[in-house]
């Protein structure tokens, strides 16, 4: 018997009713978190979560499980710091083991420009509540096991921003803990049901069509990953989203003794060892939009090479599995959340490569928006209309990262 099996969570599947106060499309982390917070924080339980496959089957079960708040702009730092704190409390709140582990997130720099970027990151993090320090090479050489301080002879490690709160958690377990909590509070969650249409009348949502029949509702939240555009198309809302694949891989399981979460923008990868002992590697999104979840060789080929250059001891680790998620990228690398021009149609998208770490705060904010009818201050900057209002947010230091 392995110690990592899910021994506690009990999922109670529902039949869909004819009408709901809120219909959440997408049984991934954001949809489940929205339902969870609606039920537990606001007592709104006449909620359905409709998942076309199995819960957590999209990006919520395909990400690289990193939790961090070391973003480059105040709006994002504040939001993700809230999420990081909710994550720290999630095991206690749900009484479920999500394998949360704080390892510290190190962003290595190899150039003077990189030093400037990471010093800036540390400064904005500190100003807005995330614990991040810039550290010099000698600290890195001392603290990071097995690191080559001058990989390929061209990428000297010249410092790092160290985000002390950087953590990981098991993605599936987060989904299940939230699903179970929502189900227990009376939320209906269905799998293998697809939303095929959203009905509106006079610019207002009145219901959804599904493969399991029509449902009446005045509030629909699109919390899908990868196909947000298709959902929005159903009500004629244009999205600033392009869907790109993001790939990752793990090695086989090894004894756990590599604690830090390491990222290098110059070398184009990040790596951490999971609670189960796999060495997990990821990189940036594929440059061209695609919905394909097929693994590519170019990705694993180039990051394996760079990983081994930075950590020569990893050279003989055997790769176990590759996978691909589909990321909804916004033009300014920042989420798109909240109301749309169609009354009752709400969106939470644009999560790019950072959806997993946003799950608790994203769901909390969407639930608050639904319950109060007011956009919470924390997510107000992420509104869809920011592009027309010339109030884009550019978190370039986070572009295409984990």
């Amino acid at each position, binding site marked *: 018997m392995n110690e990592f099996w899910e021994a506690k969570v009990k999922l109670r599947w529902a039949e869909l009713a004819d009408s709901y106060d809120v219909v959440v499309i997408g049984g991934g982390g954001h949809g489940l978190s929205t339902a969870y917070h609606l039920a537990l924080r606001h007592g709104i339980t006449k909620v359905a979560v409709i998942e076309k496959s199995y819960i957590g089957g999209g990006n919520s079960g395909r990400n690289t499980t990193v939790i961090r708040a070391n973003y480059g702009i105040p709006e994002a730092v504040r939001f993700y710091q809230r999420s990081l704190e909710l994550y720290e409390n999630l095991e206690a709140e749900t009484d479920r083991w999500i394998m949360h582990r704080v390892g510290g997130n190190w962003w290595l720099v190899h150039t003077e420009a990189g030093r400037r970027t990471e010093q800036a990151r540390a400064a904005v993090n500190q100003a807005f509540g995330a614990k991040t320090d810039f550290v010099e090479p000698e600290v890195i050489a001392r603290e990071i096991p097995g690191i080559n301080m001058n990989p390929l002879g061209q990428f000297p490690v010249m410092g790092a921003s160290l985000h002390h709160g950087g953590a990981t958690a098991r993605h599936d377990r987060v989904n299940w803990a939230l699903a179970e909590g929502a189900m227990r509070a009376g939320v209906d969650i269905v799998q293998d049901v697809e939303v095929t249409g959203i009905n509106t009348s006079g610019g207002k949502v009145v219901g959804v069509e599904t493969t399991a029949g029509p449902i009446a509702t005045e509030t629909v939240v699109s919390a899908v990953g990868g196909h947000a*555009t298709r959902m929005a198309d159903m009500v004629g809302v244009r*999205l600033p989203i392009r869907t790109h694949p993001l790939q990752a891989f793990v090695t086989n399981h090894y004894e756990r003794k590599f604690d830090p979460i390491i990222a290098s923008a110059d070398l184009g990868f990040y790596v951490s060892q999971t609670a189960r002992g796999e060495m997990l590697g990821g990189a940036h999104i594929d440059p*061209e*939009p*695609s919905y394909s979840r097929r693994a590519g060789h170019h990705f694993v080929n180039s990051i394996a090479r760079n990983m081994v250059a930075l950590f020569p001891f990893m050279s003989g680790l055997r790769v176990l599995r590759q996978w691909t998620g589909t990321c909804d990228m916004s033009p300014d690398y920042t989420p798109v959340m909240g109301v749309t021009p169609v009354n009752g149609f709400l969106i939470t998208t644009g999560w790019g490569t950072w959806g997993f770490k946003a799950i608790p705060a994203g769901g909390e904010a969407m639930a608050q928006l639904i319950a109060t009818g007011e956009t919470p201050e924390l997510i107000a900057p992420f509104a869809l209309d920011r592009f027309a209002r010339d109030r884009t947010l550019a978190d370039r230091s986070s572009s295409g990262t984990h």
Partner: protein
Amino acid sequence: MIITCPHCGDRPFDEWVHGEIPVVPDTITDPDERDIDRAYFHNNTEGVVREAWFHLAGCRRWVVITRDTSNGVRSDIARG
């Protein structure tokens, strides 16, 4: 993925840079709205798209191809 360059021949995608060909729906008629749509919004089609790729490691020219974004299979060049 292999992209066929009319000048250089078949080349793996890592020689290329992707470029979207923006399409603003005809239903948007207000000039400001068209401007905003072109700048930020996307069809984000799942299926066959027409797009440009720049052959950075070869002839350094743009070619227009069609690609199926739903499965990532090999592209064909759209001639003419």
